[in-house]
């Protein structure tokens, strides 16, 4: 296939990718969008395979590589549990990062293949682009591996911090820049790999101080990085499709990170510096004054069932705890039963609920909760005042009214779901431990709150049984 023709094919693929994202503006068009994405990818691969100079042996190797990788990917993706989605996405990001590193290496050892010069004499501009793609790819890889380990609970989700951490990272960042400059000047293979190693280390160090509940930001950010890495490689190879796609993915990840940060009222810098929840001062301030409070009111699932049976409007607030307990299915059963009783049942989703953007929506969709019943924060908040029951399952900090009133609270300013306005608030919780941010939730002590202690799934099951009686 002539160069013009393959460029044209790349253009078509780029347009199809844009349409794939466009399709996600509504569930009804989204599946078609995904199909556009697949077609685009197919066109890109075939157009590349048909480029002049593709040897028979090479093509065989490529098909072998695609078959092995594709088989593994298809196997994993069809078998993965929806609750394990965040770690799957993190793992996939790491693969994009690593493959960017390998493509950069391939371009370094065979610059003729990509028309960027000759071995040992690569154009300066291409070296800059190559080293950027390499560094971002390597950071994406090791950062995503850490995010995966935290999400998969292979390592503790708690932030790992030590003295001088930020200075170390800053120092390594500067060293990385120096190495890139030296690499561009010399084009040496040793420096190429030194950049890779340093970037791997930096990715690792950047993610370890970030705690489990900040993972929505981290996952979005790594999503963004994987895009920028692809764009960097695209510049190196002067490939229009890689540049466009990289920019799309980079922008998408950046927007998601922004939305997640806004959902927590924190700056991206604040999240990246990490260590949230270990701030002893803030936690102590938030936890003060326990002695004056009324004791919490604990209820039984039967009590909850009785009250909800007589309720007109019920708003369910799911959080990460629901995902951990795998309670989405039984929660939907409860919703169905209550609807049969004539109640209106809606679901309120906080932007940072769960471990990745949209995590709760997917789990509820998996449990066949109607899309129309699931509402975003801005949409649902005015409705709490009219609700008879707010049913909080596995969420905590996102409902804490201290975010609106207590300036000393670490979560002050975070947009929250106004569950306290409902006539009755049910709170399913394992125990009285504070939320991720280490802040007490004053909601527990309110007269209209009833705590339902126990495992989210078990308690909900008991409510369902009580409702069926």
């Amino acid at each position: 296939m002539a160069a013009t023709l393959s460029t044209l094919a790349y253009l078509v693929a780029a347009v199809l990718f844009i349409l794939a994202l466009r399709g996600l503006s509504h569930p009804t068009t989204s599946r078609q969008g995904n199909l556009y994405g697949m077609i685009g990818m197919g066109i890109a691969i075939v157009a590349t395979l048909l480029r002049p100079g593709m040897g028979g042996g090479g093509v065989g190797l490529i098909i072998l590589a695609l078959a092995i990788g594709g088989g593994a990917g298809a196997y994993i993706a069809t078998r993965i549990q929806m609750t394990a989605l965040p770690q799957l996405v993190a793992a996939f990001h790491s693969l994009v990062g690593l493959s960017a590193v390998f493509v950069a290496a391939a371009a370094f050892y065979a610059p003729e293949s990509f028309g960027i010069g000759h071995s040992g004499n690569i154009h300066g501009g291409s070296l800059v682009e190559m080293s950027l793609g390499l560094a971002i790819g390597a950071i994406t890889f090791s950062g995503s591996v850490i995010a995966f380990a935290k999400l998969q609970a292979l390592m503790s989700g708690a932030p790992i911090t030590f003295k001088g951490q930020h200075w170390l990272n800053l120092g390594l960042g500067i060293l990385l820049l120096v190495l890139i400059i030296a690499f561009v000047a010399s084009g040496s293979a040793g420096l190429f790999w030194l950049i890779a190693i340093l970037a791997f280390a930096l990715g690792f160090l950047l993610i370890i101080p970030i705690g489990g509940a900040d993972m929505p930001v981290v996952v979005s950010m790594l999503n963004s990085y994987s895009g920028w890495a692809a764009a960097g490689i695209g510049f190196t190879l002067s490939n229009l499709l890689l540049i466009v796609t990289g920019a799309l993915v980079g922008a998408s990840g950046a927007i998601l990170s922004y939305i997640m940060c806004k959902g927590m009222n924190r700056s991206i810098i604040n999240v990246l510096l990490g260590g949230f929840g270990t701030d002893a001062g803030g936690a102590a301030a938030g936890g003060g004054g326990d002695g004056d409070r009324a004791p919490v009111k604990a209820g039984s699932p039967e009590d909850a069932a009785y009250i909800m049976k007589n309720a007109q409007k019920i708003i369910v607030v799911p959080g990460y705890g629901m995902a951990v307990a795998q309670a989405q299915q039984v929660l939907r059963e409860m919703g169905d039963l209550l609807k049969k009783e004539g109640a209106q049942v809606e679901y309120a989703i906080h932007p940072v609920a769960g471990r990745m953007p949209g995590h709760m929506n997917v789990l509820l969709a998996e449990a066949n909760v109607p899309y129309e019943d699931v509402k975003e924060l801005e949409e649902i908040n005015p409705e709490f005042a009219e609700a008879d029951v707010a049913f909080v399952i596995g969420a905590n900090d996102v409902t804490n009214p201290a975010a609106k009133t207590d300036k000393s609270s670490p979560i002050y300013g975070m947009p929250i779901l106004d569950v306290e306005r409902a006539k009755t608030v049910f709170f399913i919780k394992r125990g009285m431990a504070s939320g991720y941010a280490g802040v007490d939730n004053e909601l527990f002590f309110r007269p209209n709150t009833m705590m339902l202690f126990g495992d989210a799934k078990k308690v909900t099951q008991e409510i369902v049984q009580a409702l069926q009686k």
Partner: protein
Amino acid sequence: MNPTDLANQASATAQRALELATQARALAEAHVAPVAAAADPFLYLLTIFLLACFVGYYVVWNVTPALHSPLMGVTNAISSVIVVGAILATGLGESLAAQVFGFLAAMLAAVNIFGGFIVTRRMLAMFQSKKKG
């Protein structure tokens, strides 16, 4: 004027035309080509990149928050278009090292392409099914 003269004259004119054409080509190469080269390909690529960033920005803000997880799935899958670079490195086979790296990169990207699209499809199917039911 006899036919021979006419033929000679025509031949001379043709010769002259060829000379002029050659000169014109030399002139074009001397002046026009540098102008074309001056418009650095990097600038073209940068233009494309920035415009694509804007397209991404507007398209992604239009994505409904409920579909943010599938959005990550799709972006993950399409970012593996980096496989194009891997295919070129493997297929053109300029050096063994490049072929090895290309092979590995193609394999990893393929995991993502298939995995990303399939998992997104699964997610979207869940959103879809209850629209009907």
